[in-house]
């Protein structure tokens, strides 16, 4: 009786119909089902979600006759896989989302976050206008007043306490261009205390991996995992953290019938799909890795030829590994020897094999050593530099790779040039400012507590304070902080306040700041902690989907995202905000000298061109905005597995998707990018490469250059150092340089022309000539099994600061106390106290933290997205049935989780599950808005509170910092649980 007729309305489209409704003022997409009486209750449940609808209706109502649907492509902001988002826009309103079939990375798919991303932009639970805290109340102010007041206060703080007293916290959600501008801003302000989320996710990876073979990034790509025959996923849960990567992982597993081994304390959603699962104790990655290598060395499964040709000092690792026979590995980590033997054999023999890791490996006091040990497994088995192999490091945010590359790091200027004078001079040339002027912006540091004074130049070359310890930079006695003054002000862009461990102390830090500025689409935890009464500003920033710019995915591919809709409400993008601040502080003109600025908005394309002009060291020089846009337009042409376009394509012929860095030379020479790092089976011109000769040519008489190994088509058939004019002259290649190139080189080098290198030759000539000769501009070196410049040159197991095994601490203690990043790191003292006070008696459960698929990072964005928030409405703790029954805990009830420091506690729901083993508990890290049992919702600016609030796990996480990067240690600490 009710038979559907399909013939009517043939020409119309769904969106036009929706638009007709919008235009008539009758309905909008949100009024869905209202006539069926659906929405009233739902609205009550979700709180008021009306405003967005009104805005949309207004926007669409302005011009309604035969509206045109515009399709815009941007990149999902929620992890580093780099999924393309295809948006349908109507009259400036984002009305629909379609699968991005053409993207070789996500091929139409999304995870919960990507599939809900439209709500991130259209939701009204955002900061709508600038706010200022006056006597504990949020007051609306204008942008103009906000910038003026902030600028005046910053200037006052600077005059009184110096440039280093202001902390600049950037964001992994920045575009590359915004990240670059932020770092440049820090340089112009005169401080190196410019950091972002990479500090707490993969800073240890970057340091550890770069110190091994040259660059600290994923060596291969998500797509390339399809080639693997064996994969180990250790300390990562891609099913929840990088769901789209699982498409490639599972495809590899299915098509190659590959071994998929998950090594993790938790039986994760990823482990559910594994062919082998090894449960280990949190914080014992090195013993497990050495345990695997023990079997490999014992049985002679290592790739001896690879090691001879391309690895330096593997014997040193062998010596350390010998200390880890199976019984010791099992005693320390719980991983059984027989299983490890089987896995070791697979990894060494069923090749290509790849090792995938994430924050389970990095967030430890031994984070850098962990990832170094992981690299050793790849090196020993020859699993680097080929398809299907490599260290596949999955990073966290859309552009955490790019933001790291572009220098949101306290130890370097953009693109890993470091902080040495040469680096400053290089960037001064690119920026066309005087080096001396930059130097004048920095503080002179007086001698403090027996430490010697620093000149401006020395201070300019000293790493800043890390984001993990910003509050120590406020709270510690001034004589312990190695700069002119402790931190007095903080400017935070796109960064949650709940991402650092030891939140009770962070709150103290917030109280003691003279000024706090939070620029974000959401108020963030900083607003909700009720730590401040005045001198606090919230600046509404648009989401990254509302701005143009490039993003670098984990696999080093750059993708150009175009603005989907104009910034909502009064929000502004990062470029404009930075420009306005720079203008107020008086250096906009020189900072934006070569960048077109229209209506206060700097052009993203021009910023990228400036990056291209200076980005030689990392091969950020070939990815011009034009090329990146052509890639987005021609997405469908790239191969799913190799990521390469056919050579005959007129626009993107031969390119790898997104021109993964290094993309050598100027854009005009059309280097295709490097999809797989260190791949000697390809010509450098075609994306091949060698290990980077970054650490010299020899050490103690032993060569650091590759032996009998070189990339395909190389004119040099052995190892070689990085290319400088001196090397060029020796080889006679300087004659290949054009006069124009020589002129630039001469200008840079002056009387020291021999020192001009592939990394600071602004002409690109050296790189061009290198490509012509088929050699890697950075040289052809060996990967280092012994990284002598690191605190532990060969990774050594060290128990977590809060070790559950005091018996092991004596044998495997953490490193001695030391000063790092301008502050003391007293891990050793704390660990000693933990043992002496027998903390494990009162806090016997191991606490580890991690990610949920529905949320991301500090969670403010995603918990404000009603479609996602509905799926995870409560903060919880996973607890094993045995531990729960021993404490009389029922599933779903509230419990107190007590931390061992500062009497901190959190009230969360118990989830009794065998995902965690006995003695281990797990909490997700995305929640905030409750503090020690108190609901803080009232402290949010009205209407901008997230839908779901909960306790932050970091309220109870504890002390502990990696000596190389000051990474915190939330993955292995202690706690106790009791019913609430």
């Amino acid at each position, binding site marked *: 009786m009710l038979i559907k007729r399909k013939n009517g309305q043939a020409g119309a489209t769904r969106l036009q119909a929706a638009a007709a409704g919008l235009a008539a003022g009758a309905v909008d997409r949100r009024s869905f089902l209202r006539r069926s009486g659906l929405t009233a209750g739902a609205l009550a449940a979700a709180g008021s979600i009306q405003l967005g609808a009104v805005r949309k209706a207004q926007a669409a109502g302005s011009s309604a006759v035969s509206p045109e649907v515009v399709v815009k492509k941007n990149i999902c902001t929620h992890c580093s896989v780099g999924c393309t988002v295809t948006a349908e826009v109507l009259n400036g309103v984002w009305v629909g989302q379609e699968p991005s079939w053409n993207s070789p990375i996500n091929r139409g798919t999304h995870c919960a976050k990507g599939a809900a991303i439209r709500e991130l932009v259209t939701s009204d639970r955002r900061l709508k206008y600038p706010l200022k805290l006056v006597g504990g109340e949020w007051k609306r102010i204008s942008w103009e007043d906000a910038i003026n007041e902030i600028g005046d206060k910053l200037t006052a703080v600077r005059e009184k306490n110096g440039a280093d007293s202001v902390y600049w916290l950037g964001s992994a959600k920045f575009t590359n261009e915004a990240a670059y501008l932020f770092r440049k801003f820090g340089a112009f302000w005169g401080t190196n205390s410019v950091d972002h989320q990479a500090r707490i996710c993969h800073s240890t990876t970057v340091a550890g991996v770069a110190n091994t073979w040259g660059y600290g990034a994923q060596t291969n790509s998500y797509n390339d995992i399809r080639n693997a025959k064996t994969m180990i996923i250790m300390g990562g849960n891609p099913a929840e953290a990088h769901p789209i990567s699982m498409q490639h992982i599972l495809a590899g597993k299915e098509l190659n019938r590959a071994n998929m081994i998950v090594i993790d304390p938790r039986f994760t959603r990823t482990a559910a799909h*594994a*062919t*082998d*699962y090894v449960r280990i104790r949190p914080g014992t990655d090195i013993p497990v890795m050495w345990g695997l290598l023990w079997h490999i060395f014992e049985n002679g499964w290592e790739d001896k030829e690879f090691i001879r040709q391309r690895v330096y000092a593997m014997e040193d690792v062998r010596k350390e590994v010998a200390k880890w026979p199976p019984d010791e590995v099992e005693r320390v980590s719980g991983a059984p020897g027989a299983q490890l033997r089987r896995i070791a054999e697979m990894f060494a023999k069923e090749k290509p094999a790849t090792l995938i890791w994430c924050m389970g490996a990095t967030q430890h006091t031994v984070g850098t050593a962990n990832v170094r040990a992981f690299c050793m497994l790849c090196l020993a088995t020859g699993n680097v530099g080929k398809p299907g192999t490599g260290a596949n490091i999955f990073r966290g945010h859309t552009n955490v790779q790019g933001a790291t590359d572009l220098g949101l790091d306290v130890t370097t200027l953009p693109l890993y040039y470091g902080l040495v004078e040469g680096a400053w001079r290089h960037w001064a040339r690119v920026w066309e400012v005087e080096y001396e002027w930059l130097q004048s912006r920095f503080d002179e540091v007086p001698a403090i507590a027996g430490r010697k004074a620093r000149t401006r130049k020395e201070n300019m070359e000293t790493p800043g304070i890390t984001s993990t310890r910003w509050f120590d930079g406020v709270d510690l006695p001034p004589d312990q902080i190695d700069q002119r003054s402790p931190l007095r002000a903080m400017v935070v862009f796109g960064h949650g306040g709940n991402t650092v461990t030891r939140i009770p102390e962070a709150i103290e830090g917030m109280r003691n700041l003279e000024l706090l500025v939070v620029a974000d689409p959401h108020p963030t935890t900083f607003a909700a902690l009720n730590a401040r009464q005045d001198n606090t500003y919230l600046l509404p920033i648009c989401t990254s989907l509302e701005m143009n710019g490039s993003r670098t995915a984990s696999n080093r591919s750059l993708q150009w995202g175009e603005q989907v809709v104009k910034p909502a409400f009064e929000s502004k993008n990062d470029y404009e905000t930075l420009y306005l601040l720079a203008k107020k502080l008086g250096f906009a003109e020189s900072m934006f000298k070569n960048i077109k600025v229209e209506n206060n908005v700097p052009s993203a394309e021009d910023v990228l061109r400036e990056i291209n002009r200076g980005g030689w060291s990392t091969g950020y020089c070939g990815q011009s905005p034009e090329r990146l846009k052509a890639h987005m337009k021609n997405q469908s042409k790239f191969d799913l597995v190799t990521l390469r376009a056919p050579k005959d394509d007129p626009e993107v012929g031969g390119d790898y998707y997104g021109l993964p860095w290094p993309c050598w030379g100027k854009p005009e020479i059309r280097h295709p990018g490097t999809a797989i790092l260190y791949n000697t089976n390809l010509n450098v011109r075609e994306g091949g490469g060698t290990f980077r000769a970054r650490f010299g040519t020899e050490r103690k008489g032993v060569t650091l250059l590759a032996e009998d190994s070189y990339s395909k088509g190389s004119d040099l058939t052995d190892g070689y150092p990085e290319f400088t004019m001196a090397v060029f002259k020796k080889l006679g290649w300087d004659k290949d340089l054009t006069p124009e190139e020589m002129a630039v080189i001469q200008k840079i080098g002056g009387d020291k022309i021999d020192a001009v290198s592939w990394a600071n030759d602004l002409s690109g000539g050296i790189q061009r000539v290198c490509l012509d000769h088929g050699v890697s501009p950075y040289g052809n070196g060996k990967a280092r099994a012994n990284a002598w410049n690191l605190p532990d040159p060969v990774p050594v197991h060290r128990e977590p600061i809060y070790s559950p095994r005091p018996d092991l601490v004596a044998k495997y203690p953490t490193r001695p106390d030391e000063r790092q990043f301008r502050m003391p790191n007293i891990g050793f003292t704390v660990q000693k106290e933990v043992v002496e006070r027998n903390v494990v008696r009162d806090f016997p459960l191991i606490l580890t933290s991690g990610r949920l698929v529905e949320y991301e990072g500090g969670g403010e964005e995603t918990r404000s997205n009603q479609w996602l928030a509905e799926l995870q409405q409560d903060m919880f703790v996973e607890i094993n049935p*045995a531990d729960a029954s021993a404490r009389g805990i029922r599933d779903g009830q509230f419990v107190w989780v007590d931390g061992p420091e500062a009497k901190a506690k959190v009230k969360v729901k118990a989830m009794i599950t065998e995902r965690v083993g006995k003695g281990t508990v797990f909490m997700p890290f995305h929640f905030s808005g409750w503090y020690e049992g108190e609901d803080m919702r009232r402290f949010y600016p009205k209407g901008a509170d997230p839908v779901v609030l909960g306790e932050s796990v970091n309220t109870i996480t504890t002390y502990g910092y990696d000596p190389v990067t000051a990474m915190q240690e939330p993955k292995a600490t202690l706690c106790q649980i009791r019913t609430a």
Partner: protein
Amino acid sequence: MRSGLKLLSTLLVAVTLVAGPVAVGVALAQEPMQAGQNPTGQDPTADAVNEELLFKHESTIRGVVSIPDKRAGNLIQPQGREYRAFHERWLPWIAAVVILGMIVVLAAFLLIKGRMKSPRSAEKIKRYNVLERFTHWMTAACFIVLALSGLNYIFGKRLLMPLIGPDAFGTASQLAKYSHVYLAWPFMLGILLMLALWVKDNIPNRVDWAWLKAGGGVLGGHAHAGRFNAGQKVIFWMVIGFGLAMGFTGIALLFPFTLAGIHGMQLMQVVHASIGALFIAGIILHIYTGTVGIEGSFAAMGKGEVDLAWARAHHDLWVEEQQAKAAGGAHLGHPQPAE
């Protein structure tokens, strides 16, 4: 007899439906992993989990969901089939047979035996006060609407919809549903009031046994009875019993899943519908005896007064009691008969 059959079939369905909930909480197919045990060495992707295997252990496949609605954790619950079979195959027939059967039996009875005559006199006696009559008629009115709207759930689509078309039927059914759920409350109040007002006169006693043996006077001979005869007591207890059952199951249906899970809800609906049909048949009998069946009986609820001679014929013991009370001068519960 028929009632017995119906009850049996209802019970059978009920048993099959209950089988599900009983199994709740039984562990899933696999042996639970020992707490803290390292599940190493096992192949986590072993094909241990498939539908057939799970169904061998339990009738419903359940798991966990992250949303608060834990019912959503039921992945596949084929029990809906039994529910559907009962609801579509049996229920319409059961209801039709019971209700139409009752009408047919009564019509036959009326044809064969005719109306039951009662003696007449000039005197009246007060039988029900205002509160009693209000309660009766409020409940009765609600019942009629509930019965009709309830029958619409079973027969509407089969009988009414073809006549008036889907749209009109949809509107009518929506109204019927609203009246059903709103009038349920005064109805339930009426049931409780009836219980309070009349329970003491409805406690079964030896007189009822004699009344029943005498066939309630229908088969000839005189049957003694108090305020309510055994037949009326059966109706009373049916109304109370069925009324409470309908109320309980009805409330469970009004607030879905607050009292029961999915299988419980299926059971509630089955019980509600089955008892509803029986209830309607019983009330038809009641209406028959109160109107057409027995001359003069309608006046009792209609006007509150009955003919004294009628009363003596049907409720002789009650009349005696009333008159004795009147003579004694002290009466509380019942008004003075108008003599």
